């Protein structure tokens, strides 16, 4: 597949729920935006702004009611259900607020999981899982199950898992929401490192304007519409942190 400069392209995305019933309501009223390869973008909005719905659509977990969505050159509208599964597997790396590691399964197996679904041979995926865990500084806890890890450690494993199939975008939904500020800082630093050193495209979804300031571009969502775009302030924040 030809690499496209534009990684995500959403055009006039509408999403309604309970279609055809008296309860029908529209959550997204025609959202337009695109994300370029290597960008670090945040989508900010209060709860009820429609950001979760938007995230589900970006993550190919849900389909828009109308509008066009292209992910790394693939038209989502035309994809069948099992093709969406493959798309999620290969092109999207999810990082959840609640980590969502598989219970009773050690860190390395958790990281291997997306590769298992992608059909990567066992030896190869163990190798890669070790490498990814090393990148997030979790080599020493590879064999531990999630219930033996702290929140920050779990989230680091989750980031390693999101990177497993070298996805087109990393989609992080409130990744620091359940962590204390120091640990949250650590997680954000990992995202910055991935962005700066590996040129990863990252979409961060958050309710916190403060956190969104760390990204290159901020898309503000309110009541299902994009209310504006602004530029982040990472360089300055980085400097302040260094002091």
């Amino acid at each position, binding site marked *: 597949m030809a690499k496209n400069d534009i990684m995500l392209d959403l055009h006039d995305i509408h999403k309604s729920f309970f279609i055809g019933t008296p309860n029908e309501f529209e959550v997204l009223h025609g959202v337009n935006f695109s994300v370029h390869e290597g960008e670090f973008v945040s989508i900010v909005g209060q709860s009820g702004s429609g950001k979760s719905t938007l995230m*589900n659509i970006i*993550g190919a*977990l*849900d389909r828009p009611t109308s509008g066009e969505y292209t992910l790394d050159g693939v038209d989502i509208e035309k994809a069948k*259900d*099992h093709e969406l*599964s*493959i798309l*999620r*597997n*290969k092109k999207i790396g*999810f990082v*959840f607020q609640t980590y*969502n*590691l*598989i*219970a*009773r*399964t050690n860190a390395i197996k958790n990281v291997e*999981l*997306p590769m*298992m*679904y*992608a*059909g990567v*041979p*066992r030896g190869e995926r163990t190798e890669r899982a070790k490498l990814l865990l090393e990148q997030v500084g979790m080599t020493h806890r590879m064999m531990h199950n999630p219930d033996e890890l702290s929140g920050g450690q779990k989230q680091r494993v989750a980031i390693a*898992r999101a990177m497993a*199939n070298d996805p087109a975008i990393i989609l992080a939904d409130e990744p620091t929401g359940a962590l204390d500020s120091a640990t949250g800082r650590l997680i954000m630093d990992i995202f910055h490192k991935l962005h700066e050193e590996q040129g990863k495209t990252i979409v961060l979804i958050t309710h916190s304007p403060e956190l969104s300031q760390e990204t290159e571009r901020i898309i503000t969502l309110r009541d299902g519409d994009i209310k504006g775009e602004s530029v982040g302030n990472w360089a300055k924040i980085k400097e302040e942190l260094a002091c």
Partner: protein
Amino acid sequence: MLITENILLALAGLKSNIMRSLLTMLGIIIGIASVIAIMTVGNSITVMVNTQMQEMGANNLTVGVSAKSTSEESTTSGLHFGAGNRREMDTEDYLTDEMLDSFLQEYGDNIKYTLLSSSVGSGTAMDGDLYAYVNITGYNEDYMDYTDLTLLAGRSFIEKDYENAQKVCIVSDYFVNNMFDGDTSAALGSSIEVNVSGKYYTYYIVGVYEYENDSYSSSSTEDTTTDLYIPYDTARAQLHTENDGYESITLVTTIDTDSEAFADTVENYFNVKYYSNNEDYEVTVTSMASMIESMTTMISTIELALAIIAGISLVVGGIGVMNIMLVSITERTKEIGTRKALGATNGSIRLQFITESVVICIMGGFIGIILGIVLGAVAATYMGYSASVSVVAIVVAVAFSMGIGVFFGYYPANKAAKLNPIDALRYE
């Protein structure tokens, strides 16, 4: 590839909750164990009955005189006392030596032995305070050849013994132990007196045979009744029946003869030639082969019926597995959502849960098979049969438990596969 992953995953899941896994398997274990146990017992009985009957002779034909069945009788078969005005069976109705001779002249090639025996009765041999229980039976020459006794000392009967109805006998080593303190040479040539319900019979011991304890009913050794062999003609002379015919004769056919088909020929021969004018009696021939067959069929039918009843518990076990799978899927909704977000297709989620259910069922099946074999073996041994495991039952049990796993796992697995990933992810 996904299969091995799923099996490992299922095993890890089972291990992490051993108590629940065991309880889930319990239904399958009990079901499979009871089916296997029943089959093992049934199989043991069949094998035992078969070998016993084979020993008695699969080539044996019993030629017997029996009441003619009238059409009226066959419709009201069952209890039919009195049988109208039929007269008692008389010596005239018996098979005679002439009939037998002419039959053997015609069909002698198909007959290996003609077995004739006449029972004198059970009695006690006594000498002072020494005693031994015996069954006195007279056998003809063919019968003695057929029986093929293992002689420990002395000789078998000779022609003169039969012709002159000599009062000679062959006793068991057991008998010698009781009566002669095990001294075989003292026993040979000695005369013994046997009391058969008040009548006294005297015989000279000419041989001692090795008593084979073939029954498991090892009652107190002192009281064991052993056979005392005497010549056929001696028995008939002592019973004053030397001129009577035979109510029944056993024929042993040669190996090459199809005994079941031959049975009809024999029946026909006697009935057409000798019994066509007899209003009340006819000759019936039963072959041992057909008896074995009907016996085996009967046992298998009973066994099958019992196995089906036991099989019901398997279905109950399967429902238990399904129940736990449904619970487990609800518990793991979030995991399913996560897996879907990470790229699991509906097919791989379905496969994961079906594998889990099949693994539970197969493990339960294996435990059940082992338990069933042990139970069956214990039961068979207790009942006095040597245990014989039915391989077919094991193969069927494994296949069946796998089938149960798939059947009862499919619905929950499909439910899991069809979960909406967004709802599943949000599930708490």
